[in-house]
């Protein structure tokens, strides 16, 4: 296998190197890639969409259709992870650990016997629970609101600076993942349950595709935001900018929910009880 792998790699590499000779030099301003299609995006994006960040303008408007499917890819991955891993455990895992918070003693309950849910001093802990995590817990608890605030800023300010729905959504999802890692999966599931999460996944992409369909319903081509001007009470150019913003919100919600969903499924192997 190793020899075959090496052979394939050398052949492919040879082909790629062979082709590189005919490329224009690196970063050459007159190369076809820089002169054929892209100049219009740079020169016209402010004029046509009122968005200074050209990447955002191309991402969500000129090639917005790609981005809709990009979000769908993420959504599909979330659904696939759920379909593959999620197992509903009625009897619970083989073994549950409970810690007495006053004395630090740990009791172990096997074979799905009844857990001491009525006892207030006991807290459920993970199988590989580490006691000294006060600093991590506190720091994360303080940080999470700021992470979320930053994520919202990234989504909202994607028109003017790097960022946008996708990056913001990932950061927003990361804030919940940080909670799940620093505390445990159950406390993050209390904040955002499985069902809410799944509905948010679908709702995010639905916002995106719905915006496109709205343009269609109002008589223009799919995702042609210009027609939404009467809804936003502004001129068609600003309507494009606002349409991009709507779409970015949809992307943000979908990506956030899906990241959390994949993390929940992967880190608990589909059981949703003990995380990382």
């Amino acid at each position, binding site marked *: *296998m*190793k020899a*075959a*792998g*090496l052979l*394939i*790699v050398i052949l*492919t*590499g040879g082909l*790629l*190197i062979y082709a*590189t*000779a005919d*490329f224009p*030099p*690196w*970063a*050459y*301003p007159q*190369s076809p*890639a*820089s*002169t054929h*299609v*892209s*100049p219009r*995006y*740079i*020169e016209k*994006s*402010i*004029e046509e969409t*009122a968005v*200074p*960040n*050209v*990447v955002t303008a*191309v*991402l969500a408007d000129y*090639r917005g259709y*790609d*981005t809709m499917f*990009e*979000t769908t*890819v*993420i959504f*599909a*991955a979330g659904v*696939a*992870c759920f379909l*593959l*891993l999620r197992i509903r455990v009625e009897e619970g895992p083989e073994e549950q650990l409970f810690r007495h918070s006053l004395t630090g003693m740990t009791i172990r309950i096997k074979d799905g016997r009844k857990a001491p849910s009525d006892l207030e001093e006991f807290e459920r802990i993970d199988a590989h629970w580490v006691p000294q995590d006060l600093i991590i817990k506190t720091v994360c608890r303080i940080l999470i609101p700021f992470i979320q605030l930053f994520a919202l800023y990234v989504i909202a300010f994607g028109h*003017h*600076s*790097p960022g946008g729905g*996708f990056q913001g959504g990932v950061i927003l999802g990361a804030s919940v993942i940080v909670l799940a890692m620093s505390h445990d999966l159950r406390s993050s599931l209390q904040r955002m349950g499985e069902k809410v999460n799944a509905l948010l996944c679908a709702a995010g992409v639905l916002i995106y595709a719905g915006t496109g369909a709205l343009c269609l319903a109002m008589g223009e081509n799919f995702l042609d935001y210009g027609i939404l001007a009467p809804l936003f009470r502004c001129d068609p150019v600003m309507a494009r900018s606002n349409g991009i913003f709507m779409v970015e919100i949809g992307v943000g919600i979908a990506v956030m929910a899906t990241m959390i969903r*994949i993390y929940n499924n*992967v880190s608990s*192997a*589909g059981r949703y009880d003990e995380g990382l």
Partner: protein
Amino acid sequence: MTQLLSEILTKYNYWIYITLMMIGLYAMIAKNNLVKKIVGMNIFQTAIILFYVSIGSKKGGTIPIIKHDHGAASHVVHAAEYINPLPHVLMLTAIVVSVATLGVALALAIKIYHRYQSLEEDEILAQIREK
């Protein structure tokens, strides 16, 4: 000789991307561990992203965020001053695709591990053959 050297120097980004891609491809073909293969797959994908980003770069260009004053939309923009944004857009999509594939691949690896208690391909195949 100097021609070859200049060829290498002017296109070194392309050489690096080929190297990385071959590392990833080799890992996917020759490695035995399923997670290692997934890492190889990701390296392979990032290498392609590096290639695309290299297409986009432009000498004398700055990042593709147009300098603008409030209200003055008539300001003329020259394409040569900004880096080509199109490859960046395409690669945002590709990064998303790669993380989606990663999620599904890891889910599959976990599922396989739960069935066979192993991530080594040869051990799993041996277990299948035994039955």
